[in-house]
């Protein structure tokens, strides 16, 4: 596969995952402002901005609508959902021959829908989020059922896993873990309880969490679930497992390149998530733990580029 094509597929996938994550953050936080909360509106939206990596040029200015508008519809703002979907489509357009018609048509339809105009204030977000999530799921479905699970598909997996792991890590990072009381289940219905539900919902984790732990929202369990759960597709560990699988498949498929260092770094990260105990994480400090995970993801990203995409011609010729 052409390196440029791999690059485009990787970014197409990252942008779509980013769009999906942003949709959820907006949707969940918007609905949370409808209930009384210990978190002020300002705190809440600042936290959302922080979880999205503090997009350049965006500040909380007291107006919820303008912020949501900027994050959802503003084509000029590269962090907006619309911009992410446009960027994904732009990447797909560059590799139009690599993805199949179902995928392309689905992505194209979604693009035309989100760019055709800003919905009216008031009754837009719910409709917009639902339609966008549906579209994203359809695209994902088309990708998994109709695209060959070859190299291109693996790059799509890699993009999604890295984006997902880092965005969940960033989201976990903006919450105050160490200060909160350890067990808040007795205060069910209390405001902190709602915040935890919100966090889980942002990761589509609430129902799955309840299946495992019941509706008792306990900090270590929440962390365990979001960071270390082996089976939940939006946990950091699951994402890194997927990433590792895809990297191994890639290495096997492309034969010539050894990518030893990449393999080592990804393996180390996977091992640390697999064999880690949540109390260790909490002792060490949740923030520093998840920041470390993000740092390693960035390192993996650079190594993928070095080995598969932007390699030096001299190096390739000497192999």
């Amino acid at each position, binding site marked *: *596969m*052409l*390196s*440029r094509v*791999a690059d485009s597929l990787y970014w197409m996938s990252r942008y779509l995952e980013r769009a999906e994550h942003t949709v959820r953050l907006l949707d969940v936080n918007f609905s949370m402002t409808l209930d009384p909360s210990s978190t002020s509106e300002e705190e809440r939206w600042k936290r959302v901005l922080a979880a999205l990596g503090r997009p350049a040029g965006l500040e909380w200015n007291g107006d919820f609508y303008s912020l949501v508008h900027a994050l959802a519809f503003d084509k000029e703002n590269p962090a907006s959902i619309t911009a992410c979907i446009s960027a994904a489509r*732009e990447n797909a*357009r*560059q590799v*139009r*021959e690599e993805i199949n*018609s179902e995928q*392309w*048509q689905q992505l*194209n*339809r979604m693009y*035309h829908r989100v760019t055709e105009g800003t919905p009216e204030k008031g009754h837009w977000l719910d409709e917009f989020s639902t339609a966008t999530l549906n579209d994203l799921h359809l695209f994902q479905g088309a990708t998994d059922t109709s695209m060959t699970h070859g*190299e291109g598909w693996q790059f799509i997996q890699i993009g999604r896993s890295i984006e997902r792991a880092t965005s969940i890590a960033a989201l976990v990072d903006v919450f105050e873990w160490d200060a909160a009381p350890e067990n808040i289940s007795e205060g069910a219905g209390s405001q902190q309880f709602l915040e935890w539900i919100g966090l889980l919902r942002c990761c589509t984790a609430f129902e799955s969490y309840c299946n495992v732990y019941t509706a008792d929202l306990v900090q270590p369990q929440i962390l365990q679930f979001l960071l270390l759960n082996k089976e939940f597709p939006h946990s950091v560990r699951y994402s890194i497992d997927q990433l590792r699988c895809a990297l191994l498949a*890639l290495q096997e*498929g*492309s*034969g*010539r*390149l050894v990518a030893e260092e990449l393999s080592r770094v990804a393996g180390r990260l996977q091992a640390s998530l697999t064999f880690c105990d949540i109390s260790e994480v909490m002792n060490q400090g949740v923030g520093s733990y998840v920041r470390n995970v993000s740092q390693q993801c960035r390192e993996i990203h650079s190594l993928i580029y070095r080995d*598969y*995409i932007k*390699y030096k*011609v001299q190096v*390739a*010729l000497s*192999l």
Partner: protein
Amino acid sequence: MGTRHGSAYLRNYLLDQAFDEMFEPDGEVRPHYRVLFEIFRSLPEEELMRLKHSADMSFLTQGITFTVYGNEAGTERIFPYDMLPRIITGAEWRHIERGLIQRITALNLFLEDVYNEGRILRDGIIPGEIVYSCPQFRREMRGLRVPRNVYIAVTGTDLLRLNDGSFVVLEDNLRVPSGVSYMLTSRRVMKRAFPQTFRSYGVRPIEHYPQVLLSALRSLAPEGRPEPTIVLLTPGIYNSAYFEHTYLARQMGIELVEGRDLVVHDNVVYMRTTAGLRRVDVIYRRVDGDFVDPLAFRADSILGVAGLFNAYRAGNVTFANALGTGVADDKALYAYVPAIIRYYLKEDEILPNVETFLMTDRTQRQHVLQNLDKLVVKAVSESGGYGMLIGPHSTEEQRVEFRNRIEANPRNYIAQPTLEFSRSPCLMGGKDPSIEPRHVDLRPYILYGDKVTVVPGGLTRVALRKGSLVVNSSQGGGSKDTWVLHD
């Protein structure tokens, strides 16, 4: 018209001296259009508009769009598409096919000749200055042998049908002809929209075009490369024909590469893949020749690959089409094509040319300057309907401008009579749908590998604006499916 055939659709239908593809001059439906005519006449309006809408949507979601230049950056539009197919009988097609094969064979021999011995110039058939002053002549191609001596692997020749029903050649596109994807996708849309009509007609298939193209490209591989790697070189997503590039690459199963994907090392071309560098043998070039190598041609090109031309000269890679083929579709050289056919093939041309006045010739120039309001003036190196003066539709101001331009640089212009060419019925949407005649041309695609092949069909382009003679998509043109019938 409307009352005669009992159809409200035809209330605005105009028949005059122009050849109408569907109707005889007396208003009778031509035999090969009868079935189609009956079907359309019996379709309720809503049904027709529904089919049209679903066809439009299918173009949009498939991303079958083209980019309009000079508009807001990267505006994507769907290629306007007409639902009524243009039908060509088997006998008409056989004539066209023979004519095209003859013409392309001769033009290819001409290219081989001018880039090698130059016999045709020595024998005085064509004045040397026409060739050497052509901006598309590439000195760098002198003495370079190309595989099988094939210079023009892909051609799209534009034909018009005159009032007497005969076909003439308007121009040969020998550089990077485009539009074939519209031919292929229009067919798919038509088949979906009108399956019964299609079945009852016996239309010759065109779906094998990508395979024929692929085998033509394969046959042009450098010697000693039995399993050649073939790529399609595109300028990238901002090119107006990008959709077509992706479409053809996918249909042929070859890599779609941009200049930045290729590297040249020791005169061998490689592409960068995730598994390292892979050798490239044949480049189906959809980048203009001047841009392929910044070292050999335009230094400001960022679409090309440094060293690519040397690899070509060394015989390690094939370009299709070859470089410098533009010398044979120069609009001034066009006037000599009948002579070229006679010189190399000792035959008369089967498809005639349009009468052409050369501005380099004093008497012809005088004639043209006196008749600017009746003639069409074209810049020899422009295409796509740009740089044209259509006399009868021009203003005094435009004519003065062209007069000055012609006098300043006569080699750069030619003139032709304003042609009355054929019209074909088109479905006009809007509140009150109707069927109206619009001017059409025909661009069949000719492939040249180990032999010359013409896929039965082509792109019928339509000048959708009423009365307009310009069929180019950049200037308000559209397309329709072209059906060549079995007899």
